[in-house]
């Protein structure tokens, strides 16, 4: 075993996150003894996230691994940066929310840090069990975080549901991984890939069952239909920042793992799983988008719309190739920025209005035109409007998938993303057309409105975060090349030329 590489410096970004989580926990626990101001906690978390993100840039264009368990390459770097960005954004955008709505702030931030750590491990994993441990770390942190809301009884309930079902999903995944281990005789990706490439005739049945269970287990994490049931409940019940992390970090982590698994160890048995992912992609995009038409709560709407989005991403996994992998990474980057823009704007709205019902967004264009603009642009982007990130990334994604032969699925995806415009427009219409609460009716004679000034301001932190995300959404839509190059470099790791 002496030839293994135990160079701990490779893991500096992960170590930073772990240590920071410990410090945050302790600082919170002893804050009275140490006379610490709790407002330092989010600041420290953001610093840790930035440090982790920046240090991970040190391993750009290297290809190294830690004890053959974790790879440190461009793919890992892409996700390390993505997760760090997400964490920093969410914490800055929601510290006011957390201060008011969350019990045990220290724990809360520590859980975010650990979830990010878990997701990084998933993205870097080179071995089944390591991947599983990363996934569990991510999940357990979020189980706790979901139920930390102060007043909202839905939070505890959502947490419980998420824990119980997450447990089932974890068990499913573990069964699947065991079966794959049984078929291949190893847990290392490289070894599995070699074994399967040599032929799988005598392990066909356990392998198939293993694939089904792995897809179900990871399908749960990314809320693919029919493993999505927990999603709307958890999204709705969880405190908003946790929902944001659920939809960004948790999902991106699982996608990273899917890419690692299906482009590496499982690629030789592509014929066995390709159709499964195609079918799940189909059910996911159809069900997600159609059910979203019916929703009245903004978090449930976003939950179902995010399910629809997952359908598009699965499309790329099903047709995996270097082109579709880089398209998927690009899409994931663009989606994360857009999605966070919505969530940060909704948090800013909640801070003021204490509501997350879609109906309460009415008249937002009048009371806070800036937030209305951010939400409108982000929703347009999610629906795939050109000029915004959503179109460019989705277009390249569909194009790549069409290239690999699933034209009918791409056609359905295009139709579904048109349908999605309808429910996004409903929200946009509410903000622009309807009168805000408390506005008097227009004067019947002149038709003029003589109303009190209902305007309110966004806090500086929310303002800054949403502005950055909005600009990012537009920038990626107009000129995606820089992000595309990063995605290409990351995907090149999976498919070495």
């Amino acid at each position: 075993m002496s030839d293994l590489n135990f160079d701990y410096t490779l893991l500096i970004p992960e170590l930073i996150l772990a240590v920071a989580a410990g410090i945050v926990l302790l600082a919170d626990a002893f804050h009275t003894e140490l006379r610490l101001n709790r407002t330092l906690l989010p600041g420290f978390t953001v610093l840790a996230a930035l440090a982790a993100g920046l240090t991970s840039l040190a391993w750009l264009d290297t290809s190294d691994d830690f004890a053959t368990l974790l790879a440190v390459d461009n793919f890992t770097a892409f996700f390390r940066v993505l997760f760090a960005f997400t964490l920093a954004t969410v914490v800055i955008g929601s510290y006011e929310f957390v201060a008011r709505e969350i019990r045990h702030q220290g724990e809360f931030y520590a859980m975010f840090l650990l979830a990010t750590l878990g997701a990084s491990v998933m993205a870097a994993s080179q071995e089944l069990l390591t991947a599983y441990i990363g996934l569990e770390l991510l999940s357990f942190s979020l189980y706790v975080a979901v139920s930390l809301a102060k007043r909202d009884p839905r939070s505890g309930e959502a947490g419980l549901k998420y824990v119980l079902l997450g447990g089932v999903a974890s068990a499913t995944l573990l069964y699947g991984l065991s079966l794959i281990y049984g078929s291949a005789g190893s847990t290392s990706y490289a070894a599995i890939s070699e074994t399967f490439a040599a032929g799988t005739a005598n392990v066909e049945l356990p392998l198939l069952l293993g694939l089904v269970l792995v897809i179900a287990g990871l399908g749960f994490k990314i809320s693919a239909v029919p493993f999505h049931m927990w999603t709307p409940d958890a999204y709705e019940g969880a405190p908003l920042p946790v929902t944001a992390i659920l939809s960004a970090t948790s999902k991106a982590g699982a996608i990273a793992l899917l890419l690692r698994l299906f482009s590496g160890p499982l690629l030789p048995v592509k014929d066995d799983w390709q159709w499964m992912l195609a079918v799940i992609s189909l059910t996911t995009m159809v069900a997600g988008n159609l059910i979203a038409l019916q929703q009245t709560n903004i978090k449930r709407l976003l939950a179902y719309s995010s399910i629809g989005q997952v359908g598009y991403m699965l499309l790329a996994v099903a047709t995996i190739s270097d082109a579709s992998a880089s398209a998927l990474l690009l899409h994931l980057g663009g989606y994360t920025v857009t999605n966070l823009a919505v969530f940060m704007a909704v948090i800013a709205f909640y801070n003021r209005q204490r509501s997350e019902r879609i109906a309460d967004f009415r008249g937002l264009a009048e009371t806070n035109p800036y937030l209305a603009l951010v939400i409108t642009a982000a929703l347009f982007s999610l629906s795939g409007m050109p000029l915004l990130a959503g179109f460019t990334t989705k277009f390249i994604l569909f194009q790549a998938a069409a290239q690999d032969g699933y034209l009918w699925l791409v056609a359905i995806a295009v139709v579904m993303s048109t349908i999605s415009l309808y429910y996004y427009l409903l929200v946009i219409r509410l903000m622009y057309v309807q009168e805000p609460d408390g506005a008097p009716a227009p004067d019947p004679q002149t038709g003029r409105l003589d109303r009190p000034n209902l305007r309110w301001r966004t806090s500086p932190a929310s303002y800054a975060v949403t502005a950055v995300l909005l600009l990012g959404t537009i920038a990626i839509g107009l000129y995606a090349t820089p992000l595309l190059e990063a995605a290409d470099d990351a995907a090149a790791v999976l498919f070495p030329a």
Partner: protein
Amino acid sequence: MGMEQVVLLPAIPAAIFVVLALFSPLLPRRGDWLAVVGMAVVVVLALAVAFHFQDFFGHGEFDPSGENARAFEWLNLSNGLFQIDLSTYVDAITVVMLLVVSIVALMVMIYSVGYMRGEARYGWYFGALSFFTASMLLLVTAGNLMVLYFAWEAVGLASFLLIGFYWERRSAAEAAKKAFITTRIGDVGLLIGIILLWREAGTFDIQQIIEFAEGGGFDQRYLTVAMLFLFMGAVGKSAQFPLHVWLPDAMEGPTPVSALIHAATMVVAGVYLVARMLPVFDVVLVARDVVLYTGLITAFMAATMGLVASDIKRVLAYSTVSQLGFMFVALGLGSPTAAMFHLFTHAFFKALLFLGSGSVIHATHQQEIEQLGGLWRKQPLTTWTFVIGSLALAGVIPLAGFWSKDEILHAANHNLPVFVTLAVTAGLTAIYTTRLVLLTFFGEPRNHHAYEHAHESPPIMTLPLLVLAALAAVAGFVIYEGVGQALGFAGGIGQLIFAHEPEVFHFDRDLATFALAVSLGGIGIGLVYWWGTAERATRARGWAPELHALLVNRYYFDDLYQSLINYVVLGAGSVIAVFDKRVVNETGVDGGAQTVGWFGLRLKFLQTGRIPNYALAMAGGIVTLSLVAFYTS
């Protein structure tokens, strides 16, 4: 220095949009002058492109048969999937579009200074107009389909913003949404068409695709499907049957916007697209026939609906839909000359009519023609320019509309059913135009309150009317070789834009006489029927009530679509949602917990009721996948 400088044309209004969007409240007059001056510069540049002034463009001449220029690389997938350049393509079709867009946009902006004075969001209005113009100019100069698609969506977005300009007004917001969704349906088709073309041709470049198609690179059936999808985009954008429903509602926007976007420029984008891709349509004649008959149905249907509409702007909207149908008929017959020529003349006289109607609305705050009448005494300039525009629309010699409609009839000469339908529609056009003019400007005033307050509009609004009236009168002469040469071109429009061979125009006396007879006959019928007293305005209703109801209700298409959405899309959605609810969730966390109060009770209920269901669904998924896997392996 060459034609790639053409990107300047969209770049100027785009920059103005950014400035106005960010700083308009800080600028004197909210920055309207900036938009107008910028647009004037664009007009000068467009003329420079057309008349190839040496100073502006290095090697001087634009090649009527087209020139491709690559500005810069925009997206490049390194794994070789595709590369998209921001490239431009300029030929005679582009030049026609550049002139139309820039001139009408300038006129509309000048007019808007008067029309929109005192509006809230005045600066935003000019910003949005600039954004629209930038997108439209990008659209017509795009050298490849992806850039075109981007611009295509951007004009749609601009239209959405401007239709919904009075967003507090519910009908305006509804109309904006309807327009957006309807055109998006077409756009999806366009995108699919582009992807299909790219898959086979391996490029987005329009000229390369045309070469590939003409070289027989496509499978016939495949290409037919691709071109039909592409045509869907044109149908949506140009409000053709069966996606014509959005345009009349789009009249909720400010009137100058209707003139620019919904008469002269954006709605002709579909015509432009088909004209641009016509060599490919020529390869698959089935697709070209679809273009022909779509246009024909639309032209006729919209004209009949225009006969009964009672809102001045809606009459014009139906008329626009109908005239766009004429252009598609020309394209379907394989004559880009006639289509682009009609596009060119129609832009001027229809923009004139819309701005004229805006002048009426501005003066009377009344849009129902049955409430107007007698305005010629109060608004002479508006009236007489409007009459010129109407005569051009009706096709009276020597105004612009006559020449271009004649050219379309000429193209249809060999196809009797098409020719007859076109002639009938031309007659209907003359009738509804006469009705519009008579009820609005002549006869007795029917609403005295509106009439008393009427006044002629300020010069800043009448000046554009005069300019456009002049263009509506003379624009048709560019068909003549001599006129074209006098302007510095190689010849008349038929020698610049053509399908196979340049054509020198010959005046066909028989055809012209027939066309003129149809127009005058229509005008005569209109005069006999509507000239005179106030009661005549509403007389048509009693004549054939069922037919009238059918037309007023627009052949019930709007109702049909609404119920399709209600029952099919939302229905399918709710079926799946109910399933999701029954098997699973919804009531799980809807806040009922607060009313129950006792959290434990809820949890118990939930543990016994729902979580097993969730897990059951997962198990169902796993079992299904496993069964299929084992069965097929």
